[in-house]
């Protein structure tokens, strides 16, 4: 039963792909409208180097932005919970940055960093969108440390550093990991958006490949780049889920009760 459950999405996917392939061939749909899966694979294999390099480029930008978002978000969350004044002063602006659609910030950012530095715009945009879930979740996590344990640490005269390191950060870990799962996907979106908005120039990531192929009406190649982007997103999510499970499975109810 559980093996069937596990395989169910794979089987469904294969059925859909087969139906797609069959219908496109049967109805003779032009490839520039909807290419069959086989044509997408062919497009992928026709130019693996360019697409592979673009994949690598998008991956690098995404991971850099993600790493900066995690370190920056955690650091600012720690500052926020140390200084309520700083938190009140900065929090509204963090929210403004968060709620302003990233697509709308992109053109402005490109003007500032220059169209020859699309990679930098990607990094900044990806950082902006990935940063907030880390900040919000970690702040909540640091504050959610058990009140009884706080009393205990006070009873034993724990230093602020000891409280942070031994109580608040471990308490925040499940929240941080949940935030990281959201941020990982958002970082990828940020990395993609900047290239789309730039439209041309020095972009060399997967999003640029999609724009480029679209200009040439090379739909199979668009699908190939899109598939790689999806795979990248899936890989990031899967990896972060694994980290979450490994870090929490022994002690946190969210993971520990899984069969």
């Amino acid at each position: 039963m559980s093996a069937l459950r596990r395989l169910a999405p794979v089987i469904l996917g294969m059925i859909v792909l087969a139906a797609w392939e069959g219908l496109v061939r049967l109805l003779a749909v032009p490839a520039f409208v909807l290419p069959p899966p086989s044509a997408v694979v062919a497009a992928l294999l026709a130019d693996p180097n360019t697409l592979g390099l673009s994949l690598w480029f998008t991956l690098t930008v995404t991971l850099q932005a993600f790493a900066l978002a995690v370190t920056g978000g955690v650091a600012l969350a720690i500052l926020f919970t140390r200084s309520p004044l700083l938190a009140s002063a900065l929090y509204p602006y963090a929210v403004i940055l968060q709620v302003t659609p990233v697509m709308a910030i992109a053109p402005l950012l490109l003007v500032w960093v220059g169209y020859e530095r699309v990679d930098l715009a990607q990094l900044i945009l990806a950082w902006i969108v990935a940063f907030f879930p880390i900040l919000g979740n970690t702040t909540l996590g640091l504050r959610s440390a058990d009140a009884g344990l706080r009393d205990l640490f006070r009873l034993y005269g724990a230093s602020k550093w000891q409280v942070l390191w031994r109580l608040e950060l471990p308490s925040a870990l499940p929240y941080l990991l949940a935030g990281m799962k959201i941020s990982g996907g958002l970082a990828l979106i940020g990395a993609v958006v900047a290239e789309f908005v730039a439209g041309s120039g020095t972009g060399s990531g997967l999003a640029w490949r999609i724009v480029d192929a679209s200009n040439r009406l090379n739909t199979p190649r668009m699908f190939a780049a899109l598939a790689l982007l999806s795979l990248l997103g899936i890989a990031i999510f899967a990896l972060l889920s694994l980290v979450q499970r490994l870090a929490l499975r022994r002690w946190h109810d969210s993971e520990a009760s899984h069969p």
Partner: protein
Amino acid sequence: MMGQGPAPFLELQGVTKRFPNGTLALTDISLAVGDGEFLAIVGASGCGKSTILRHVAGLVAPTAGRITWSQPLAAGGVGMVFQEPTLMPWARIRDNVRLPLDLAKVPRAEADARVTALLAQVGLADYAQAYPRELSGGMKMRASIARALVTRPRLLLMDEPFAALDEITRQKLNDDLLALWREQRFTAMFVTHSVYEGVYLANRAIVMAPRPGRIHADIPLDLPYPRDEALRTDARYAAACRTVSLALADAMRGAA
């Protein structure tokens, strides 16, 4: 004060606590606790029992009055067991029990030796590597007691520690607690809403009256130690329970 009793170890003088919201939690609490005494603080919910413990622990400061000690306590001189086990869920039992020593930067080898010995004493030797969630409620409470005793405190504060446990586990823990107390000779302040539990454990019962929290009666309990199951059917135990119950009923009169 108990006439023939030991030297006062801790004294509360006119301790009054008004919370920022205006609630008068404690009023004019004066209480001398002798060295090595086992004090039960008995009262209904909301009569300030826990607040007394939190004052003694130094977690809250009195609005008026003061708390004096016969001699200054070293770090870790006061251990506390809360109503909940209050263990760090991410840490193994061994690491939870070692926490007070880690916070005091006791060398790891010495700390580990003390933790191992204490875990054996509370019957958790086989669970040193376990995480709190893998333990039953009673076992978690044992770990919490081990943690409170790991600094070899002079005073152990317990805030209804066994209230959430079933009767059988509770009685076993009561017996084990008495054994630890007789062996280590710490002073104990044990908050409970159970007259029977308080009388079983303590050699002195403080009965609290609510709204505002105040001491209604101070009753010496002269039942002999060691105490065990036989005591529960002893006429002297029944008489002591009756005395404390009557005092408690009197304290609640007009309050509830």
